[in-house]
């Protein structure tokens, strides 16, 4: 059980960055964040330091935006990039250990299994690939995602996640299609669709926007949250409400539809709390937000704006602190229950 209180959400720190941070992983039990960014580099920053300063990793790195990073062990990070490569890094030395040409097109996201032994990567070649986190060996690959949209344009495979028990992997694409796979066999076990997250404009602008940007399983692995944005009128902008749909994926049924009435743009990332009571989502348009929703009712418990469009976040072990990375900023949010004030001393009775 966590002791967090989403209604107490407040931003406690905001750190400027020269680049756009797309992905983040946190070194356990610390304020040390490893983040990938638009300068093609992986960086480390200790956000709990008095004056946090990002430090770039060394050596031959990526050749494009770094869009995914996971920690397999407290000292090994793996990053993925639009250059199609996965790079294993020694965090303490901040140097590369291994580089693997993983995908033919842009890697959009990485996920790591709960035991840290398997890494999943998804890319615009529409493949999901599972990798041995220790050796870098390709274990298997699968896809249920068409490379071309129904409107004859290239599709994109944006999102991937493992279930908390590690048995399943879910992948989500541009047109709102989700496939769920058995991790050990690569067998497809279910599909669900969230077509509202994909907007095709056939008349005014004749292209599309949106797609599934975030996937998260509930703690019992029965529910799958699918995040993105709703149907957009003017697809020049991310002007629709941020949107999450929750599926009972084994039954193939959508059980909740969470339309953010306050914030627009994409849900870039979301996570269930360990008790499965709330779901935190974050993302944005030109601004950003952090929102907590009651899983059972779908209602918003509490939400607030973020100082930037958030691309990803990490939570601490107590699930009461959120480390968000995004557009030229890192922000730290806390949602801890208020510590009861010490009981005030009973005033002495006035002298009569």
């Amino acid at each position: 059980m966590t002791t967090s209180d989403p209604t107490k959400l407040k931003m406690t720190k905001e750190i400027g960055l020269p680049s756009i941070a797309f992905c983040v992983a946190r070194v356990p039990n610390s304020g040390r964040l490893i983040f990938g960014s638009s300068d093609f580099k992986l960086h480390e920053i200790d956000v709990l330091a008095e004056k946090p300063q990002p430090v770039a990793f060394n050596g031959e790195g990526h050749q494009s935006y770094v869009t995914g990073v996971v920690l397999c062990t407290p000292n090994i990070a793996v990053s993925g990039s639009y250059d199609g490569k996965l790079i294993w890094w020694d965090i303490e030395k901040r140097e590369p250990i291994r580089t693997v040409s993983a995908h033919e097109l842009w890697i959009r996201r990485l996920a790591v299994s709960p035991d840290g032994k398997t890494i999943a990567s998804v890319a615009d070649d529409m493949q999901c690939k599972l990798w041995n986190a220790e050796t870098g060996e390709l274990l298997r690959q699968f896809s249920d995602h068409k490379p071309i949209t129904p409107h004859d344009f290239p599709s994109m495979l944006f999102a991937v996640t493992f279930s908390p028990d590690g048995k399943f992997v879910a992948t989500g694409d541009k047109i709102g299609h989700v496939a769920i796979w058995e991790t050990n066999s690569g067998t497809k076990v279910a599909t669900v669709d969230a077509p509202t997250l994909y907007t095709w404009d056939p008349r005014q602008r004749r292209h599309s926007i949106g797609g599934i940007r975030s996937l998260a399983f509930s703690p019992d692995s029965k529910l799958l949250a699918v995040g993105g944005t709703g149907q957009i009128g003017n697809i020049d902008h991310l002007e629709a409400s941020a949107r999450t749909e929750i599926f009972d994926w084994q039954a193939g049924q959508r059980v909740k539809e969470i339309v953010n009435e306050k914030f627009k743009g994409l849900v870039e990332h979301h996570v269930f709390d360990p008790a499965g009571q709330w779901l935190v989502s974050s993302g944005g348009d030109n601004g950003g937000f952090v929102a907590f929703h009651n899983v059972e009712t779908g209602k918003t418990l509490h939400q607030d704006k973020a100082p930037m469009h958030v691309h990803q976040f990490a939570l601490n072990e107590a699930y009461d602190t959120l480390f968000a990375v995004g557009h030229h900023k890192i922000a730290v949010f806390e949602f801890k229950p208020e510590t009861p004030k010490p009981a005030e001393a009973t005033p002495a009775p006035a002298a009569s």
Partner: protein
Amino acid sequence: MTPGSFFCGSADHGVSRRGFLSAAALGTAGTFAADMTQLDVWRHSAWAEDVKKKDKRVILLWLAGGASQFETWDPKPGRPTGGPFRAIQTASSGVQISELMPKMAARMQTTAIVRSLNTKNGDHGGGSSLMETGRRKDPGIEYPDLGALCAKELGRIDSAVPDYVSLYSSTEGRRKGTSGFLGARYAPMFLSENMVPENVRRLETISDIDHQDRAALRDLLAKRFAQNRTSDVIGSHSNAYQRVRGLMASEKLFDITQETEAMRAKYGPTQFGQQCLIARRLVEAGVPFVKVARAWWDSHGQNFETHRELCADLDHSMSALLDDLKERGLLEHTLVLTFGEFGRTPQINPSLGRDHFAAAWSASLSGCGMHGGACYGKTEPDGHTVAEGEASAGDLFATILAALGIDPLKEYTLGARPIPLSDFGSKPIKEVLA
């Protein structure tokens, strides 16, 4: 209509370019007296040159909304403004373009790039007007756009096909184009809702013979009326009627089912690809200017995803078009252009978009009159400003006209006022001309 000068539109009856041109020359000579706009040519004894000039065609692929130069012709990989995409080597030594355009990279020998446009107007309306006419608006004059200029300079008065066809299917930013002071004769045949022109079919209640008889009667009466009268208006009115049957018959040119399945497949399934195929059919039949608008590139949000979609469409369709024109011997006589109202900002906004930007952007010019593989101008490393070879909209227009064999300094006279074809002070960019 001169026999043999009209391509019926079917693949089986395609007229060769040379056949078309000789027929065109004969047809032009036969009816020249009626062409009030061509009298200057006679006076200057430049008949041979004029015929040569009329060999030229233009297809403008109008990138409506403003395509990003970073994701097309002027990539800046590794720079803070560069975005995620790589630059790839093209078939022209030392010239790299975005990896989103791999097919065009392989065809760069046909294409010149101008990377140094500074057009100073980042507003959709103003920028469009500027890039349509090659000059800023003048309250006293309505200037013709490039299509109308080319229709006048390259078209034939007796043409059985339209002189200026504009296809703009999407609704956003839709602009019809204008013939300005050149008058309605050079206005575009504008297709917005369908890819086949509307209202050009003969009414079913009138037989073809009846239609021809009516035209002959009208012609007889018009000639009697015109006797001993000298008026441009009468000539123009009469000429418009002479063109009717040709325009009616041009419907088939827009019907791509007349092409083989293999040819349609080359252009791909998108509407833009299909419109590029129509453009090829039109220029092959002698239409001097075709504009195909591909909307909408205005990527304030999700610039990279937008360009991944739209560049794939542009790259494939444009490559198919250039290949097809080349295989038919038409590319050396057809200038294929890509530009819109402006480019996009170096800065990447929080929605991962790029905004309007006119201070340093790019255009491409392929085929006719161009030094393929040339790359003119340079932007500074982050693309904020032009570093070398700044070019205006007028310079681009002067270059286009020069490539077509039209003197950019040639003047129209509007009242007593001389109006040069390209803006005052503009110059062709010689480095990209063949």
